[in-house]
């Protein structure tokens, strides 16, 4: 019997079919298309679970199938194919599960929306796009999925397109990520160009990886290609400085934020880095750059959440920070740790966003200073949100704890290989965990404890434009709405499911599961197991630190996770310290002036978002959109067209001159001149014929005299 993996193609196809059916018939269905979306994504989840189980229990099982999608010229072939291994299966499970939760949740959250059916079609289309990226066996197909994901994101961020701020947010997201895609596309092209002599299918992941590992692919190609692809990951996965679109993307409906801007799409960059890990592992430079960007992002991205009052923006910046962890982990050889964190983060971040949606639904505001005391009226939301916060903060035994610790441990091991980036990941990672715990505790205290404040903030310092459209509209409609109530069942069930997963999903990668199968064995491919870092020997030895063979990290896989009591101690201390500090500052309700705004220049920098947004607008958008474009048009109209017009005018003038001077003046002048002179002479000569005989006689005599004189002279 054929393995269930052979059916993997159905996983993306089901949501695609759903998108088509919903778009075509959704408006006529009793639930407006929601039922189609839920059923098909549910089916995709069931299949994904079967595939996950198959690959989990048989580590290393891989299936690659492809057919020639199109010839590209020169004998090269573009494949449409699937590569199903543990990594794919893990992503399948995550994407379909979160997507299903969002599909279910939206049934309640989006109830009564004007574009309900369109919304569901887009959700399904998005799910398909992400799965197309995940399943692909070649970089070009991945690019197709990647860009489609971007389009869906654009359409859903701008879902409430009546408002200009939402339109701007959508455009910003699309264009920022598109800018990063320059890197991705050129990177993919560079890598495939290196493969031209080696394969007819130059985009194939497996062949590219094999060529890189075996050294057939030139180092220059690898470095240039991977650095460029990484630029794409920077923009898609919200790494600094191209993270600017992600907080603005919160303009979309909250379930979309959960699905796209937290759990799945933004992980595309990390996924691609994981997929190409054996390639980038060939270069210390590439890994170093990735690590540095990740470290900066995980720390400075997290800090930005401190000064936010919009619950969704707090979560958005936390997403940036957590993605920073994942990227940094890739840069320090934490392949398993990175995708493990991707996996667990997907659940608890989806949970937090959906919980935030439940809160927003109840109080009609995104602003945590308008919340407070929501523990009693909203018990399910309270408990699930608390679980999500604990997981995000990395509280021991939650899912986030195991995965984050794995990243820190990876940093530690990398440091043993003599790379400072490893040390930084370890310590900065711990510091950022403190920050994370603090801002989540701040939000938690302000949302759930104390009295319900409820007053809509008229003068919100950060501009309330991130607020959901419906929340805004409702807030205007009834400023004094009823006391907040718990959300309905459609919204609570997904919260509970995700809360359970946030508590338990980490166990498969925890030290409790020492033997295979575990997370590491599940997501490790054959190549990953066999690959080592070629630069390690010379680099480590040259640096005079621990020799490569002494540390375990010469291999990509670190082996089954173990307990690190020292780290556990530090993490617990950081957690307790951060919660205590938050309790002291916010435990008694909202302070008159938020302490996070009283940190002097740091607060100012954070409120200004380090100036990235303003600089991007001022030094990129405005010059290109307003100045360069005007300049180009002027050149076109005045200079180039001036030459064309000038040539035309010159030809015309030349024609005029030719006609007036040469034709009319000289040539025709000659003709006319001949005629004219004849007339002149004839007028003169006419006078001779006067009929006066005496004059004729005189002339005759004169003539004779002249002739005689002439005759004499000649003689």
């Amino acid at each position, binding site marked *: 019997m054929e393995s269930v993996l052979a059916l993997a193609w159905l996983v993306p196809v089901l949501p695609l079919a759903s998108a088509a059916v919903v778009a075509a018939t959704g408006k006529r269905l009793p639930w407006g298309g929601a039922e189609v979306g839920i059923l098909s994504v549910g089916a995709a989840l069931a299949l994904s679970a079967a595939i996950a189980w198959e690959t989990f229990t048989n580590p290393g099982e891989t299936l690659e199938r492809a057919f020639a*999608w*199109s*010839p*590209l*010229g*020169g*004998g*090269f072939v*573009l494949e449409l194919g699937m590569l199903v291994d543990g990594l794919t299966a893990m992503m399948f499970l995550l994407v379909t599960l979160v997507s299903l939760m969002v599909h279910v949740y939206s049934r309640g959250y989006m109830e009564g929306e004007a574009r309900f059916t369109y919304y569901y079609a887009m959700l399904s289309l998005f799910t398909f796009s992400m799965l197309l990226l995940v399943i692909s066996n070649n970089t*070009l197909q991945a*690019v*197709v999925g990647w*860009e*489609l994901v971007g*389009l869906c994101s*654009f359409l859903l961020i*701008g879902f409430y*397109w*009546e*408002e*200009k701020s939402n*339109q*701007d947010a959508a*455009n910003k997201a*699309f*264009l920022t990520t*598109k*800018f990063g*895609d*320059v890197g991705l*596309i*050129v990177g993919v*092209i*560079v890598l*495939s*160009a290196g493969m*031209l002599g080696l394969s007819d299918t130059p985009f194939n992941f497996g062949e590219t990886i094999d060529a890189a590992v075996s050294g057939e692919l030139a180092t220059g190609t690898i470095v240039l290609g991977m650095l460029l692809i990484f630029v794409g990951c920077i923009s898609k996965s919200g790494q600094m400085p191209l993270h600017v679109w992600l907080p603005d993307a919160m303009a979309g409906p909250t379930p979309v934020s959960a699905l796209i801007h937290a759990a799945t799409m933004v992980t595309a960059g990390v996924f691609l880095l994981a997929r190409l890990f054996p390639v980038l592992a060939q270069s210390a430079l590439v890994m170093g750059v990735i690590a540095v960007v990740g470290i900066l992002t995980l720390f400075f991205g997290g800090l930005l959440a401190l000064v936010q009052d919009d619950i969704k923006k707090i979560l958005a910046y936390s997403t940036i920070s957590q993605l920073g962890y994942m990227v940094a982990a890739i840069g320090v050889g934490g392949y398993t740790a990175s995708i493990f964190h991707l996996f667990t983060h997907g659940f608890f971040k989806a949970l937090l966003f959906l919980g935030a949606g439940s809160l927003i639904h109840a109080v009609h505001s995104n602003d945590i200073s308008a919340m407070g005391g929501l523990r009693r009226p909203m018990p399910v939301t309270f408990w699930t949100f608390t679980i999500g916060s604990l997981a995000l903060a990395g509280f021991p035994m939650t899912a986030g704890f195991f995965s984050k610790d794995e990243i820190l441990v990876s940093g530690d091991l990398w440091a043993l290989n003599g790379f400072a980036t490893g040390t930084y990941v370890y310590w900065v990672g711990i510091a950022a965990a403190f920050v994370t715990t603090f801002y989540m505790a701040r939000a938690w205290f302000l949302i759930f404890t104390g009295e319900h404040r409820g007053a809509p903030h008229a003068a919100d310092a950060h501009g309330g434009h991130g607020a959901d459209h419906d929340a805004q509209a409702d807030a205007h409609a009834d400023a004094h709405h009823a006391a907040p109530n718990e959300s309905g069942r459609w919204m609570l069930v997904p919260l509970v499911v995700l809360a359970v997963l946030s508590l338990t999903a980490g166990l498969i990668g925890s030290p409790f599961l020492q033997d295979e199968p575990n997370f590491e064995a599940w997501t490790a491919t054959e190549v990953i197991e066999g690959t080592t870092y070629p630069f390690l020997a010379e680099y480590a030895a040259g640096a005079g630190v621990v020799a490569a063979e002494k540390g375990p990290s010469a291999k990509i896989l670190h082996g089954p996770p173990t307990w690190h009591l020292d780290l556990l101690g530090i993490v617990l201390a950081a957690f307790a310290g951060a919660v205590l500090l938050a309790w002291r500052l916010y435990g008694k309700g909202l302070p008159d002036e938020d302490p996070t705004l009283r940190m002097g220049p740091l607060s100012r920098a954070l409120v200004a978002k380090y100036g990235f947004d303003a600089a991007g607008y001022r030094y990129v958008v405005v010059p*290109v*959109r307003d100045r*360069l*474009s*005007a*300049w*180009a*048009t002027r*050149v*076109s*109209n005045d200079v*180039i*067209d001036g*030459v*064309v017009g000038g040539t*035309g005018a010159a030809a015309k003038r030349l024609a005029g001159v030719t006609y007036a001077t040469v034709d009319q003046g000289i040539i025709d002048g000659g003709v006319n001149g001949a005629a004219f002179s004849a007339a002149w002479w004839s007028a003169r000569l006419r006078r001779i014929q006067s009929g006066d005989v005496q004059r004729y006689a005189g002339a005759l005599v004169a003539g004779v005299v002249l002739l005689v004189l002439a005759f004499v002279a000649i003689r």
Partner: protein
Amino acid sequence: MDPNTAGWALVAALLLPVAGAVAMLLIPAEADRTIRRFAVVVTGVAFALVAALTAAFDYGRSGELQFVTDVPWIPAIDARFHLGIDGISLPLFFLSFLLPFLSAIYTTKHLPEPGKPKAFLGLMLLLQTGMAGTFVAFDLILFFIFFELVLVPMFFMIGMWGGPRRDYASVKFFLYTLFGSIFMLVSFLAVYFQSGLRSWDIVELSQAAGIGSVTFQTWAFLGMFLGFAIKVPMWPFHTWLPDAHTEAPTVGSVLLAGVLLKIGTYGFIRIALPILPDGALRFAPVLGVLAVIGIVYGSLCCLAQTDVKRLIAFSSVGHMGFVMLGIAAMNEAGIQAALFGNIAHGVITGMLFFLAGSLHERYHTRDIAVIGGGMLMKIPRYGVLLTYVAVASLGLPGLAGFWGEFGAMWAAISPGLGLSDTYGGLYLGLVVFAAIGTVLTAGYFLWMLQRVNLGRPSEKWAAAELDDVMRVEWVAWAPLLLLILALGVFPRLVFGVQDAAVTALLRSMGG
């Protein structure tokens, strides 16, 4: 229909529109509806014939000429009547029968002032024969005649049914193209005399590869370059295009963008490259640089436009830049991408001009600021179509625009015929700048959509009665809308047909 013997089918398809135009003369000018319907029938029958021809085409031998007619024509100057079709010609030939058919359907409802469908449609039919002929002519003299034949009807279409500045635009279009074609003709003559073959036959001259010295080829290529580059148009020969498009009637713009511009790039690929490979090789970096300037520059100009139609016109400069970048790569992948980009641009931009025309029909303006947004609310179906086609035009994968752009960049990273050894760095730079051009392209389209489609309708339009997409528009547009998706999902539809022909072409160039 046997592709080996049925040369008559190609001739018939080519002559049908002209015959239709002549027959139309017999219909009295007052019979307005009859004339319009008659044009639909003529173009429809011609399209059906071409569809049958496409079905009968032997795709296993797409590298060879099929449906050939090759008879002496003007023996005194060795000119022959040589028609044929191969994998490179077929998609373009198909397009030049599809678009006039759709235009005729569209014209049953929309025809700008001063009306006169008899003259308008007659010119369109004449134009159809001219442009279709360029793609199947395999004799340089015959090609030249078709090339020039195209100018006259288009000149009158712009000059009589055009916008306020139609006189200027039509004369500029006519003279500019004619100017370039003179140099092209001189080059044709030079090739004829230099080759010593006493032949104008494109196939024979291509097989002779390497006519004259490198210097000769360079000069001859320069002449053809002027002729074709103006037609494409390449930067900096593009300034006739925005004027012509802005003033042309909708159908004129559709055919201009959809087919006429392709004659230039087709000429490069079919004539200039294979007959003058050495000249082409010397020119390739220049072509590449001009192409990429066109991409970036065209996109920048789009950002500054206030008129929707002029914006679309300028976008052609950028898109044709990608096509030329593919040609400049001088390898199979590049030619493939260029030809794909040709077709995709024809379908997408043709559709965009239809939309711009219908926009004008409704709002009686094309000024973005005057429309002022809210179209998606006012006429939602129309707004969705505009979004769809704009997204296709900005090169979203899964829709037609992507493969030509990506393919051109992919091909240009490793240019053929030894160019990568000498100009590898230059071409890498070209790829990077071309990729940046895609961001600018996304930028101006999204900005346009934001200002036209999104938001709420302004006061001026809030109460106005505007028709959403009409039935005749659905009929005329549906094939293009479907093609945009089909070509995006099945790039094989074009790549597969062209593959063998492009291989054969490159082989003759020594690549």
